[in-house]
């Protein structure tokens, strides 16, 4: 195992004390196979216990360690030092208010997530005695990709539309709405459309595609949004051309 000296340039900010964010440099002796999160943990344990950041699983499952690494929204547990130079700049996720240091405020995202009702709304309720809701592998395949989202919000940090229009519901929440819309057991699409097909929903997306590029789980939220645009456009015409269909 070889050691490598890495210079971390970390954004520090405590809204209660600091007027504005500043950068602090740490020189960290790193193992070759470390990820950026390991280097941050080294700083926290050995150099500066006051540094704040979120993390939990260290294996790209919990979705909490997202940050800007050299300007790119990245999970710091997936950012191998060998892929970076000897100077690495670490900042909190873009487009979110800073809670402290690398921790961002996620309240806005959480409330958007709630609005799109990301849970099964069964078509008809059936008593437990009637057994489980069955689904074929083909029906599962239709939406499985969209279940992989870990709510890391990297896609929001990458989205230039979200940066311009903070009210935009955004990639992950919309992709999750799509996930439930596509589920054969679900009957909640009409309810979700109230949010999804609004101006702040899919129609703020201009299909830049940055969300899908940075997504660590290959969810492809941009693809989900385009599919919803097509479906909502068909809805729009049907609602007007065949008004008797509207219940």
């Amino acid at each position, binding site marked *: 195992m070889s050691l490598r000296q890495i210079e971390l340039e970390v954004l520090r900010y405590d809204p209660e004390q600091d007027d504005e964010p500043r950068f602090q440099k740490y020189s960290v002796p790193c193992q070759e196979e470390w990820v950026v999160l390991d280097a941050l943990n080294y700083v926290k344990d050995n150099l500066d216990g006051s540094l704040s950041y979120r993390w939990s699983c260290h294996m790209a499952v919990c979705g909490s360690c997202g940050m800007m690494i050299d300007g790119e929204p990245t999970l710091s547990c997936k950012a191998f030092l060998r892929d970076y130079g000897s100077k690495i700049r670490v900042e909190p996720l873009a487009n979110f208010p800073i809670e402290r240091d690398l921790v961002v405020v996620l309240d806005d995202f959480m409330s958007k997530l709630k609005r799109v009702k990301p849970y099964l709304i069964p078509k008809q309720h059936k008593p437990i005695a009637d057994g489980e809701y069955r689904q074929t592998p083909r029906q599962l395949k239709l939406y499985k990709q969209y279940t992989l989202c870990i709510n890391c919000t990297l896609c929001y940090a990458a989205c*230039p539309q979200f940066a*311009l229009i903070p009210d935009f519901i955004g990639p992950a929440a919309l992709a999750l709405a799509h996930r439930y819309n596509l589920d054969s057991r679900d009957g909640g699409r009409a309810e979700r*459309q*109230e*949010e999804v*097909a*609004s*101006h*702040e*929903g899919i*129609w703020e997306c*201009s*299909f*830049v595609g940055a969300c899908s590029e940075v997504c660590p789980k290959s969810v492809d939220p941009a693809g989900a949004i385009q599919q919803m*645009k*097509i479906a*909502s*456009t068909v*809805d*729009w*015409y049907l609602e007007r051309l065949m008004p008797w269909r509207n219940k």
Partner: protein
Amino acid sequence: MAKSNKPIVWGLFAAGGTVSAFVLPALIFVTGLAVPLGIFGDDALSHERIYPFVSHWFVSLVLFGVIVLSIWHAAHRIRITLHDFGMRGDGMIGTVAYFAAGMFTLGTFFALSGM
């Protein structure tokens, strides 16, 4: 929250994107390269040969579809691109772009129906 009326322009944009991706390259190749280079013979696009073909109602209809959808695609694309470049005044830009597309649509209609 009210549903958006964006589907009107987006529907045209999406259809136009498909048409311009599949049909325009072929048309550009035929009319812009192959014919001038004489690949299809000297008088491939001569007035006498092409007029009866284009003035058939079905061909006119197809041409109308291809031209108009491509134009609406372009209008919406320009609006989005300017927005992505950080230009403000999206409503104004949209109005100008769609007005131009509307004018082109009318022009295409009269040009084709006058044949």
